[in-house]
């Protein structure tokens, strides 16, 4: 049974959206409703008291004829002024501050709702005056009351309504900033590889994830030690192997000294070649491990490519002479570019050595240096069997050797070249010859600094 796929924890931003936004909305709505209820009770109670006091004061003095100043519609409906009506025992409206209002005399005394003939809703307080059946009614427009309550409520919840988006905006910023910190941290972690294992600086890391980063730094430290241990092991092993190889070499030389060479092929020659091959392999191993020593990364400097190629060819001429291979060069001096000479030499030497080993005896190796837009190209072309396209990537693997080539290589030269090329940000391609003949064309592309594709910044800075 396969385990269920791990559920991804939603992002912080999603969590904030999902939880805080509804919560804030609910709180805002609830506080609006509560404010509305509170203001309604407050205003209605206050107004009811006012209406009762007013009605009773009119009812006390009904002996004199009452003269009431008429109110405008705006007074009644917008300013909420009270309408007073005085009714005679005969049921006639003797005085009204709103002459146009048509509202029947209320049957019941006290506070109540009423509706006028024009469809307006009113709150009313009716008082029977003395023992007679005179009556006083005080009315207030419900339109005004509703408007008043709504206005008050809105004023009360206004600040809350403003606060919610402000709060969300602040939260959003905080989350964005901390996730930007996390993204920067992720970039730092992604920049670490076997060549770069320095600890991550804790200064700009958010406090909450400092323990995580500290543990990660611990892991980096242990990795560094492991890599270092591995490098030291390879170096020690290579050094230790040299002693028995030296002993074998001396034994062969001593044997050869003692007996006259037999007619035909001397078996000692083949033994000698085998020992030579073991020595070459040990040398390459050592070079590889020394090269991997990140501490040895030298600072970049302006490099004269032609001089470097000249040195490289000079070093390889011993092998060329032994195998009677003609080495030719074509190209002009080009403007210096920045790089680490040791690494560049490592790339040139390895590729040239490769070409000289795989070209048949008496063959030809061509080295070319030319400039193209924004980059210098170095090409090394040989007469050898070439490499099938399917294998051109695999030959960079350590100890991989093209099957059936029969050449005494170590299988390390090209991986040494590639490692150095990668450190320097160089392009390294193996191609078929462009003139249609069999052979390999190794092309090194050296980008000019300033195109943003120069040697890796960490190396430039040392």
């Amino acid at each position, binding site marked *: 049974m396969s385990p269920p796929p791990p559920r991804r924890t939603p992002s912080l931003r999603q969590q904030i959206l999902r939880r805080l936004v509804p919560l804030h909305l609910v709180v805002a709505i609830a506080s609006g409703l509560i404010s509305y209820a509170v203001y309604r009770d407050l205003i209605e109670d206050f107004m009811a008291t006012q209406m009762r006091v007013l009605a009773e004061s009119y009812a006390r003095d009904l002996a004199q004829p009452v003269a009431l100043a008429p109110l405008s519609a705006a007074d009644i409906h917008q300013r909420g002024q009270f309408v007073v009506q005085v009714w005679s025992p005969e049921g006639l409206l003797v005085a009204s501050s709103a002459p146009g209002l048509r509202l029947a005399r209320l049957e019941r005394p006290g506070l109540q709702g009423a509706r006028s003939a024009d469809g307006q809703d009113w709150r009313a307080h009716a008082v029977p005056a003395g023992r007679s059946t005179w009556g006083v009614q005080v009315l207030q427009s419900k339109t005004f009351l509703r408007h008043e309550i709504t206005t008050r409520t809105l004023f009360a919840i206004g600040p809350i309504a403003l606060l919610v988006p402000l709060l969300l905006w602040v939260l959003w910023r905080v989350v964005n900033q901390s996730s930007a910190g996390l993204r920067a941290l992720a970039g730092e972690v992604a920049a670490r590889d076997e060549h770069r294992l320095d600890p991550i600086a804790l200064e700009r890391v958010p406090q909450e994830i400092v323990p995580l980063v500290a543990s990660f730094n611990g892991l980096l430290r242990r990795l560094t030690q492991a890599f270092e241990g591995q490098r030291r092991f390879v170096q020690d092993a290579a050094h230790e192997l040299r*002693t028995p190889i030296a002993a074998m070499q001396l034994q062969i030389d001593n044997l050869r000294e003692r007996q006259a060479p037999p007619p035909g092929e001397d078996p000692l020659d083949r033994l000698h070649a085998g020992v030579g091959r073991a020595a070459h392999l040990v040398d390459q191993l050592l070079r590889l491990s020394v090269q991997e020593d990140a501490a040895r990364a030298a600072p970049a400097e302006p490099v004269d490519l032609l001089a470097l190629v000249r*040195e490289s060819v000079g070093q390889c001429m011993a092998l060329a002479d032994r195998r009677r291979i003609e080495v030719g060069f*074509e190209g002009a001096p080009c403007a210096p570019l920045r790089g680490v000479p040791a690494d560049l030499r490592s790339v040139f030497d390895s590729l040239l050595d490769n070409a000289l080993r795989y070209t048949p005896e008496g063959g030809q190796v061509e080295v070319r240096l030319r400039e193209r837009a924004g980059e210098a190209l170095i090409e090394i072309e040989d007469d050898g069997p070439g490499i099938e396209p399917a294998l051109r990537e695999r030959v960079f693997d350590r100890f991989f050797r093209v099957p059936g080539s029969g050449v005494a290589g170590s299988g390390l030269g090209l991986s040494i070249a590639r490692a150095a090329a990668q450190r320097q940000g160089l392009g390294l391609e193996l191609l078929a010859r462009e003139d249609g003949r069999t052979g390999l064309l190794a092309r090194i592309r050296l980008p000019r600094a300033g195109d943003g594709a120069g040697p890796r910044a960490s190396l430039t800075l040392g």
Partner: protein
Amino acid sequence: MRALIVEDDEMIGQELVKALSHEAWSVDWVRDGQHAHAALADGHYACVLLDLGLPREDGTQVLRRARQRGDLTPVIVITARAQLDDRVNSLDIGADDYLAKPFERRELLARMRAVVRRRAGAASPLLGEGRVRLDLLTREAVVDGRREALTAREFALLNALLERPGAILSREQLESRLYGWGEEVSSNAIDVLLTGLRRKLGPEAIRNVRGLGWRVAPA
């Protein structure tokens, strides 16, 4: 002539004894640093082969103490550690020469002869490692043991080519080494010199690398 071998590895030690005995050296072999001190103190050796990785006392220590005592016996350091730092370090503390494992018997014997000759003061310094060398005192070329007199320009040209082993020098580089500022150089001056040199040293002694320049054949 007596040689002292300081080597803890049995296989190498035995083969070295065989190789040197065959060349008429009389050989003493010690296997650690303390015995090496004792041997150096009472024997007069023409040459010492010193391995650096020794039990009980490191080879570097043996060499340093011997030099502090004023012992001037020629010492060739033999070691598996052949990084540049190791080589420089050994030469600094007083080794006469340095040989990295593995090495060929011929080369070892040649270097032993060379340090002995040098210590005896009999040999003038020779520049170069291959077939063609340059005697810096007599200003003669030495080809397969045969001496050839050189003109001043020929000497300067060969000197430039032999200064660094494996060096390839372009026409411009050779001209700037041979001729002063403002000196008129005819376009075929270098070719004329090279033709002359090849006549004296043999046609294969100085070889052209097409497009890059000239070099001295290494062997």
